[in-house]
C-alpha cells in the first residue's frame, strides 16, 4: 500500500519553476531517496509534502486519503536541512514541547523523550541548553526530536552532515529500525554512497523535473553501459575483437565494453579460444554517483533565474 502518492505536483515561484510536474509514489515501510543537485527543487517538493507550502497544481495523497496538512502534519516527522532549535530552552523541555505540537499528550511526550534519551545515551542532557551542545550532538538531538512522535512518514534532509562515523552509524541503524517497524523514510541528499547503501527506491530531480525513478538496482541496470572487468593470469597481447572494445587496463585485468549485438559469452569465448587463463569476470554497474553526474552534467549546477512568461 502506498503511504504517499504525489501526482503532477507543480510549484512556480516568481523567477523559476521550482517543482515542475513531479509524480511518484511511495510504498509503506520503504526507504526512499530523493536526489538532485543543489537548487533542483527538493526542498520545495518536501515543503509541499509536509504542508508548509501549498502546491500550485497537482495532488498529494497521504495514507490513501487526500493530504490535509492540519490533520496529517502530526503523522509526519521532518528534519529540515536548515535545522535548529531554541537555543535558550532546556533540551528536555524543548523535546517535550515540540512533540506536544505534533499531537502527543504531555505525559506521552515525556515518556517518549525519556525512552529516546536512554536509547541514544542522552539522559544527562535534559537540563542542558542547545548552546552547550556541539554541532554533532545537536544533530543527534534533532534526529530524536524528528522521530519522537512516532510519525508514519519521516523526512530527513541531509541527516548525516556533520556527524562522526560512530554517530552516523547509530542513526543509520535507527533508520533501518524505524523502517522495519513500518515507518516510511524519505531521505534527501546528494551524498550518493549513502543512498546506495540505505535506499530501496530513488528518484532524481533536476531543474524541478523528475529525471530518474526506480529501485537502486533497477536504476543501475537502466544506466549500465555493458562494461565488464575480465581478470587474467597475464594480460593477453592480442585483444582486438568485433565483440567488444577494450576501454582500459588495470593491473592484470581488462575493462571491456561489449558492442551491440554481442553478449558477455562472446567475450569469454574470444579469450577461451585463445587459451588465455581467465581468473575473474564481472559486470561493472555504474555507481549512483556516476549516474548522477551523467544525468546532471551539462546543466548548470545552480539554476539560472529567469522570469516566467507562461
Amino acid at each position, binding site marked *: 500500500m502506498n503511504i504517499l502518492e504525489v501526482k503532477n505536483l507543480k510549484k512556480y515561484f516568481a523567477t523559476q519553476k521550482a517543482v515542475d510536474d513531479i509524480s511518484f509514489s511511495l510504498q509503506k515501510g520503504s526507504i526512499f531517496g530523493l536526489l538532485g543537485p543543489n537548487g533542483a527543487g527538493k526542498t520545495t517538493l518536501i515543503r509541499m509534502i*509536509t504542508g*508548509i507550502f501549498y502546491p500550485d497544481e497537482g495532488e498529494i495523497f497521504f495514507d490513501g486519503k487526500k493530504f490535509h496538512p492540519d490533520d496529517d502534519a502530526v503523522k509526519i516527522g521532518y528534519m*529540515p536541512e*536548515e*535545522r535548529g532549535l*531554541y*537555543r535558550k530552552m532546556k533540551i528536555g523541555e524543548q523535546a517535550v514541547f*515540540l512533540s506536544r505540537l505534533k499531537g502527543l499528550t504531555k505525559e506521552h511526550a515525556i515518556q517518549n523523550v525519556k525512552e529516546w534519551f536512554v536509547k541514544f545515551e542522552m539522559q544527562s542532557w535534559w537540563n542542558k541548553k542547545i548552546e552547550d551542545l556541539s554541532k554533532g550532538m545537536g544533530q543527534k538531538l534533532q534526529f530524536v526530536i524528528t522521530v519522537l512522535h512516532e510519525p508514519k512518514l519521516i523526512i530527513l534532509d541531509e541527516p548525516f552532515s556533520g556527524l562522526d562515523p560512530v554517530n552516523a552509524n547509530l542513526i543509520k541503524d535507527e533508520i533501518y529500525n524505524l523502517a522495519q517497524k513500518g515507518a516510511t523514510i524519505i531521505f534527501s541528499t546528494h551524498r550518493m554512497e549513502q543512498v546506495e547503501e540505505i535506499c530501496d527506491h530513488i528518484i532524481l530531480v533536476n531543474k524541478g523535473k523528475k529525471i530518474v525513478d526506480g529501485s537502486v538496482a533497477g536504476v543501475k541496470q537502466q544506466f549500465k553501459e555493458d562494461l565488464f572487468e575480465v581478470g587474467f593470469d597475464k594480460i593477453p597481447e592480442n585483444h582486438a575483437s568485433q565483440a567488444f572494445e577494450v576501454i582500459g587496463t588495470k593491473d592484470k585485468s581488462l575493462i571491456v565494453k561489449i558492442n551491440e549485438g554481442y553478449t558477455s559469452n562472446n567475450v569469454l569465448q574470444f579469450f577461451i579460444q585463445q587459451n588465455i587463463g581467465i581468473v575473474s569476470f564481472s559486470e561493472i554497474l555504474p555507481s549512483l554517483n556516476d549516474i548522477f553526474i551523467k544525468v546532471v552534467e551539462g546543466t548548470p549546477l545552480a539554476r539560472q533565474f529567469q522570469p516566467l512568461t507562461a
Partner: protein
Amino acid sequence: MNKILIIIQKEYLTRVRNKTFIISTFLLPVVLALFIAGVIYFATHSSEKTTIAVNDVSGDFANNLKSDSSQVTFVYDKNITADNFSANGYKAVLIIPKYDSAHKDTVRLVSEKELGLPTQEYVKSQLGSALQKKLFKEKKFDKDAVDSILQTSVTDVYEFNAYKQKEGKIQQSNFWAAYGIGFTSGMIIYITMMIYGMMVMRGVMEEKTNRIAEVMVSSVKPFQMMIGKIVGIAAVGLTQFLMWIVLILVISSAATAFLSHDALQQVQQATHNMPNSGVAQAGDATSKISEFTHAFAGTKWILIVFCFIFYFTGGYLFYSSLFAAVGSVVNEDIQEAQSLSLPLTMPIVLSFVIMTTSIYAPSSNLSVWASIIPFSSPIIMMSRIPFGVPGTVPWWQLGLSMALLIAGFLFTSWLAGKIYRTGILLYGKKPTWKEMLKWAFRK
C-alpha cells in the same frame, strides 16, 4: 486551538523563568525607589556649604543678604578682596561697588572653583531682594507689607472652581485628575506597545536565526505560531505589570513607614528654598494632590478601567503583529531590524507626542481624529476618556474608535500573518516593503 495554547504556554514560561525577566521585574521598582530616595537625599542634604565674603563698598547691602544655613553663608568684611579671599578661608568673594543709578557697574562674584548655578542664582536673588528693600525704603514703602500683598492669590480669599454645564446639570470640572489619569494610561500604553512589540519582533527574529522556524511550521501553521507568540508575550507583560504594581505598593508603604515626619518637612523646606528648580515644581504638584484626591471621587472608574484594558490590549495587538511581520523578514542584522521597524515605531512615538498637546485640549480637532484612527487611538483616546464620556468624548467617537481598532488589529494580524508565512522561511536577502506587500496581497 490546542496548539496555540501549547505555544502560548511555552512562550510565557520560557520568558518568565528567564533571568533577565526576574532581574528587570525586581530591579526596576528598586531602582525607581532608590532614585526617588536619592532625589530626596540631595534635596535635604544640599551638596556643599559655601561661605562667601561680602565686600560691600557702600554698605547698602550689609546685613540684607540672608544666609541660607544649608547652602550659602554671607560674611561681611570690607578687607577681603579678590586677591586674599581664599587665604582667609572663603570660597568666594562678592564685591559690590557703590550703587549709582546713572552708571551700570559690575557686581563681581569671584571664586577659585566654579560655584555652580544654584549658588549663583541664590546670590543673585538675594542681591535683588536687598536692592528692592533699599529702593522701597527710599520710596517710604514697607517691603514686607508689599511682599505680602504681591503674594496674595485669589484662593486665599475665595474658593475657585471650574464647572461644566451639561444637560442642565452642573459638574465640577476636575482637570488635574483627568490629566493625571489620561497621561498615565497613555504613557503605560505607549511603553507597552514599544517594549513588548519589540519583544515580539526579537522573538520572531530569534526563531528565524536559530532556524527553528521550519521545524515549527511543519507542525503548526505560521499564523498559529505568530498568535501564540503575541499572546504569550502579552501574558508576560501583564505579569510584569502586576508585579511592578505590587512591588511599588510594598516599597512605597515601607518607605513612608521608615521616613520620619521631619524628613518630609525638610523636603518641603528645601523645595521652598529653591525657587525655579524642578524640585519646587514637584513640590507644587504634591500640593495639588489634595485637590486630586478630591476630584477623583467624581470619576467614572468602571468605564475608564474597561477602556484602559480595551485600548491596552487593542493597541498591543494592533502593533505587535506588525512587529512580528518585521521580525520574520529580517535576518541576523540588528540594523536591518531597526530600519524596517522604523515605520512602526514612528507612529507610536508620534501619537505620544500628540498626546502631550492633546491632553491640554481634549476636544480639539487633532485630538478627536487622532483618537479615532487606529494608529494613534490607543494612546490618544485613553488620554481623552478621563475628561468625560459622553461630555468630552461623545459616544459615537468612542464607538467608532473601538470599532476601527478592532478592525485595525484584525487587518494587521491578517496582513502580518501573510508576510510572516513567507518571511519566516526566507533567508538571505532583505526584502523591500514593496515585496512584503506583494506577499501580503497574493492569494
